[in-house]
């Protein structure tokens, strides 16, 4: 009992998540800077940003509903932390593995997006309202291909548990090659879920100031930033477990492999961010509905066929 509480709170649970997400944000910003031929921020930069934001005064707009305004950052961070606990970090099995946790994780990762929308809508400000509605519009664009891409490996593995899927692909590593189109789709949809360039129209700071979070300041803004980087860590972990099936069976080697895999995924996301410019929200919609959704659907049908028709 005590051991499992420690596992959830310290390693590989919440403390590890907070440290690792700070590391990932540093890697993200540093590599982005190096790709622009800059020196980039020092290693402690994400931590300094967090501490500074915690120390600043919180301003609540007078026409916003106070309880909702202050509850949203906590709710979104809690949802992301709960999602992270379902992903395998130390060894092949997650701390809280249960059948169907992949679906639960996908829904938990939707909560921060909805919190963004509510935060913008509740701020009653022009820019934040535009940002909120763009967030929601973009969610309707990427959610369908994201779900189909994340569920394709699950259908081939015949289980809805992330740890179970990882175990299946550990047993049959070559089957993972079938899921490569789904990996491509899920990388792009994750980029859009995390609202990073080229899909950052909802928070375009040169255009609509900062999107849904315009009115947020102080520790509430720090919570939303923490949500964003923890979501990056959680999404990278889920992608690593679903699409990169390299396990050895030895716990600490698997942990090292986990770090390598998530770093590779984050580097690919930085490459996307550094090499592309922001596209408009209508272009985002068209791209997701007319290009990525058919690819994801073809992958889903192929996996259903392989699973049911050939009985893999």
């Amino acid at each position, binding site marked *: 009992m005590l051991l499992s509480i420690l596992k959830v709170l310290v390693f590989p649970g919440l403390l590890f998540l907070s440290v690792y997400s700070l590391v990932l944000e540093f890697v993200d*910003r540093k590599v982005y*800077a190096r790709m*622009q*031929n*800059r*020196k*980039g*921020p*020092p290693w*402690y*930069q994400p*931590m*300094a*940003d*967090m*501490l*500074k*934001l*915690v*120390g*600043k*005064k*919180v*301003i609540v707009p007078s026409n916003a509903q106070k309880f909702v305004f202050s509850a949203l950052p906590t709710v979104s961070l809690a949802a992301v932390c709960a999602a992270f606990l379902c992903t395998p970090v130390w060894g092949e099995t997650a701390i809280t593995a249960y059948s169907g946790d992949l679906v639960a994780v996908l829904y938990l990762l939707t909560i921060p997006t909805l919190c963004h929308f509510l935060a913008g809508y509740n701020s009653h400000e022009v*820019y934040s309202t535009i940002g909120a509605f763009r967030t929601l519009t973009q969610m309707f664009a990427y959610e369908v291909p994201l779900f189909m891409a994340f569920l394709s490996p699950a259908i081939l593995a015949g289980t809805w548990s992330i740890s179970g899927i990882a175990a299946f692909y550990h047993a049959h590593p070559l089957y993972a090659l079938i899921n490569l189109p789904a990996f491509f789709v899920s990388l792009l949809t994750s980029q859009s879920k995390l609202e990073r360039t080229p899909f950052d129209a909802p928070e375009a*700071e*040169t255009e609509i*100031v*900062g999107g849904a*979070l*315009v*009115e*947020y*300041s*102080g520790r509430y*803004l720090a919570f939303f930033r923490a949500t964003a980087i923890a979501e990056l860590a959680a999404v990278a972990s889920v992608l690593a477990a679903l699409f990169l099936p390299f396990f050895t069976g030895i716990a600490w080697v698997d942990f090292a492999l986990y770090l390598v895999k998530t770093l590779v995924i984050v580097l690919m996301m930085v490459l996307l961010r550094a090499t592309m410019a922001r596209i408009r929200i209508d272009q985002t919609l068209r791209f997701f509905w007319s290009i990525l959704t058919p690819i994801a659907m073809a992958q889903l049908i192929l996996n259903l066929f392989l699973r049911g028709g050939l009985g893999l």
Partner: protein
Amino acid sequence: MGLLDKAIAWGEKKSPWIIHFNAGACNGCDIEVVDALTPQYDLERLGILQQGSPRHADVLVCTGAVTLQTRDRLKQIYDQMSTPKFVVAVGTCACTGGIFDSCYCVTGGIDTVIPVDAYIPGCAVRPEAIIDAVGKLLATLDAKEAGK
């Protein structure tokens, strides 16, 4: 001063986020501010990021003499920032009003409307001068913290 306060004070020095406001400049100093943010000078190595929203920013970087049109807006943007906050006046016009001083439509320097923490003279200022001034402003933060 507890450990958390010390950590927060350290974070304040290491991560000043700026917001840029043109109070009526001829655009010369604005070009130089944008210049300082380009990869050539790379302000992110000092933790400086440009923010769109005044709620997110710590340092208000103002250029130009304050005109009657922008006076109220400058005051409003300053009030929207959350404390602790700092103001940097970039360019001779922002410091004193410059050649526009005592013009019929000009109030004067930035400090006639809001309190200013650092003055950077020059017409137009060099990006190196902006970076140097921000560094010096951050170095004085300790003294400010003690005096508060």
